[in-house]
């Protein structure tokens, strides 16, 4: 279980202090899938980075009975927190296999299965360098595989669907379901996709650096279709109608 107690994140900017997260209070339980959604710039990635220790925070963060607020990234990782970045890093010279091995921390892993779980063919990828020749979607999937290679207490996935084709997307949702079935990891997925939203035990709405709502996915999707039916631009909406949560922004 992960608890955020009055967590804030602020950055020094040109125009003084900018509060990116304010008073975040969240309890995230084991064996549940949480989907965080909300407008761009609302603070979703910042919450994930605050949990991972990448952003300095005020307030307290507890993992089970351990106060991890003062821990650095490495220590939090070793406590069982993992984060699949929205914008994954590329590495000149580091191969997919190397990354997965580093991720597993010496535990035996099935690299082929891991890549299959994110819709990639192991044979084509294991020996490839994670460099500029990777497409955005490929990079995202390698990033997700590096999180799946670990046994985590808390797994954070930041817009995992971005740049991923439909077929792989299907695999990916199955993979999240399987992860959920097999382990009691707390799974947090930042996403705007209806199919991902449907996996959620709880949908957490983040906007303006705060938690602005917590609902079930049924309720959330209902609200959206209501908003959609009130939408003035509906007839011209390129996203088209109720099926897409992004229309609510």
């Amino acid at each position, binding site marked *: 279980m992960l608890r955020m107690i009055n967590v804030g994140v602020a950055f020094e900017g040109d125009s003084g202090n900018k509060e990116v997260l304010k008073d975040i209070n969240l309890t995230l339980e084991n064996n549940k899938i949480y989907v965080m959604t909300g407008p761009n710039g609302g603070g979703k990635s910042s919450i994930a980075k605050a949990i*991972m220790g990448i952003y300095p925070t005020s307030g307290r963060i507890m993992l089970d009975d351990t106060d991890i607020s003062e821990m650095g*990234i*490495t220590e939090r990782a070793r406590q069982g927190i993992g984060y699949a*970045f929205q914008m994954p890093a590329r*590495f*000149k010279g580091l191969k997919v296999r*190397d990354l997965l091995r580093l991720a597993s921390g010496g535990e035996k892993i099935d690299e082929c299965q891991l890549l299959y779980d994110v819709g990639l063919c192991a044979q084509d990828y294991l020996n490839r360098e994670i460099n500029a020749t990777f497409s955005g979607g490929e990079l995202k999937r390698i990033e997700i595989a590096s999180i799946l290679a670990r046994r985590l207490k808390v797994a954070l996935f930041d817009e995992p669907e971005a740049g991923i084709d439909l077929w792989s997307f299907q695999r990916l949702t199955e993979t999240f379901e399987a992860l959920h079935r097999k382990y009691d990891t707390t799974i947090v997925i930042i996403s705007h996709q209806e199919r991902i939203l449907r996996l959620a035990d709880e949908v957490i709405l983040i906007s303006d650096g705060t938690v602005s709502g917590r609902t079930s996915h049924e309720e959330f999707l209902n609200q959206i279709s209501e908003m959609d039916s009130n939408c003035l631009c509906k007839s011209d909406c390129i996203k088209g109608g109720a099926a897409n949560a992004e229309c609510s922004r």
Partner: protein
Amino acid sequence: MLNAVDKKLLEEVAGLHEIPQGAYNIRKNGEGISRNTTANINIVTKKDKPGIDVIIKPGTKNESVHIPVIMSKEGLTDVVYNTFEIGEDSDVVIVAGCGIHNSGDGRAQHDGIHEFFVRRGAKMKYVEKHYGEGSGRGEKVLNPKTVIEVEAGGVAELEMVQIKGVDRTVRDTEVVLHENARLIVTERLLTYMEQTAESIITVELKGEDSSAQIISRSVAQNDSKQVFHLNLRGHAKCRGHIQCDSIIMDNAHVSSIPEISALHSDAQLIHEAAIGKIASDQLVKLMTLGLTEKEAEDTVLKGFLN
């Protein structure tokens, strides 16, 4: 004849655990100490100056030549001239390299002047590793000069690595490519403490459809200094690409001085150079997998210089 220090040096520069298979010539402290030739590869001592001629018969396939140089004495400057004749349509690997063990306070220096003729249709892979060790204050200096001519349809692939213990180096490489000839260079360089390294590579793309690709990666740490002059000159319809990538750390200095000259309207030349710190997103990613900052840094550098 080979003591423990010699064996360590041989392993570092030539990956050799014992006397190599095939043709070889081992030079120690300014003298040839052991040699083997094969039916296709002859090695002859030069008469007019120190050094050897390595002659590879046309059509020789899948053979290798090891010509390591080891130095374990201080106060020695060894200058050697080696000439390589790579016969038509042959396909060979040449492993050179120089290891210096200097435990004294005097300088130990090796200047190797290597000249290669890669004949029509021949393929040569040349691997050169430089390595220094020893606790003394004596400098370890290596100044290789490499001159290569690749005839029509020939291929020269150079792998030049210097990642430990060489205090000063100026490496000068000149290549002439004829019709359809191809050059591939990968250079890896790491400097630290007060070391300095300069690499000059000049490629004359003279023949039609010749091509050159140079990939240089370096890491400069502490107070070390590096300078790269990579130069492509296209005299005909040709293609050339330089990628020069450096990671800079601490108080190091790196200069990358590009030069590409097209002397023909169908010459296509590209130079890419980048110098920067280790990308912090790479470090952070590795730390989120449980590596310490130091481990993350080492992992990134090792991959980069791989």
